């Protein structure tokens, strides 16, 4: 290798980034070539000079400003999705969430049943004495079609199947 080729390899040689063979060639050349040795020193000196460049010190509170910026940039969808990821899919919460689901389902059935009973009681309470007497005398009724036309009877549990009365 001539001096021009060696000169191109000196930076990588100084960085120890040459293979063993190239490295050996450069080393041998440098040991016998004062001109390339001078080049090598100039490379080293200019590289060392780069250390003169001042470092900038980031403004205090960088991390705090980052979290604020993140909070401002995150859309509500991201927040919900993160809450779901961190909350609903957290294995430790699975038993608690399962129990909560059971409570909600059983509770909704119980509430529904309670409201139906309440409705029936309210309807019975709203019936006039005349209507009640009519209900009591249902067995005596001769005209079942007439009974079927009485709308309020449809809501009464007492008469579950009007067909029975026909027999």
């Amino acid at each position, binding site marked *: 290798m001539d001096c021009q080729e060696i*000169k*191109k*390899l000196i*930076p*990588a040689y100084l*960085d120890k*980034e040459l293979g063993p063979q190239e490295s050996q060639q450069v080393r041998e050349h440098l040991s016998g070539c004062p001109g390339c040795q001078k080049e090598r020193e*100039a*490379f080293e*000196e*200019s*590289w060392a*000079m*780069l250390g*003169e*460049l*001042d*470092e*900038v*010190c*980031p*403004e205090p509170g*960088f*991390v705090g*400003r*980052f979290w604020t*910026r*993140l909070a401002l*940039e995150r859309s509500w969808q991201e927040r919900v999705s993160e809450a779901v*990821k*961190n909350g609903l899919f957290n294995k430790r919460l699975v038993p608690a969430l399962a129990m909560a689901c059971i409570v909600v389902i059983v509770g909704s059935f119980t509430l529904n049943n309670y409201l139906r009973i309440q409705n029936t009681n309210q309807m019975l309470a709203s019936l006039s004495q005349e209507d009640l007497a009519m209900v009591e005398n249902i067995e005596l009724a001769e005209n079942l079609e007439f009974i079927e036309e009485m709308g309020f009877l449809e809501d009464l549990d007492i008469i579950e199947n009007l067909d029975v009365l026909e027999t």
Partner: protein
Amino acid sequence: MFFFTLQDKSNPYLSDSDVRLMLEFQEGNKASFETLMRKYFPRLVNFIYRYVNSREAAEDLTQEVFLRVYKSGSSYKPQSKFQTWVFTIARNLSLNELRRNKYKTVSLDATFSSDDGELKRQVEDPNSASPDDEVLLREKAAAVKAAIDDLPENQRVAVLLRRYEQFSYEEIARTMNVSSKAVKSLLSRARESLKNKLSGWFKVVS
């Protein structure tokens, strides 16, 4: 997924402690993310500052880097050392910023501002006698900065990563998405250029 990845012995990057912190963050540990941020933000601010020549942009872009890291947490897969990945993001964002704003590079005889006011570059005659070594040192630093700024963009990145971040050629290649051979050539030309521009300052002040 975390355990699967950890058990994947074929992935060489799992030996990188920063990659492991990132995987911990992926599992929901925000403290790991903050550890990474505290470790890297001073380096990134300096790297970006030297790259785009704007302190304000440097802080802003560094925050942007960590926003990208944070947002890609759920899909993160270790395919390089963490520092290579994070500096790749920083380089790409800085490049976009340079293209958008076309920051002017500084000429060697232009005036420049320092914390203590405005100084005049004296690169033309570095050996001119000055009673004040401190001023001379500042001028030397300004010459260094100007010499770096005058490098073509890809040479400048390679120099910044090698000189100030001690990246290997392989890491620089990954960060810049080029071959190691290309990095060797970039650094060779860059160092030749730096040597020529700074040789007038050798032995001036040490």
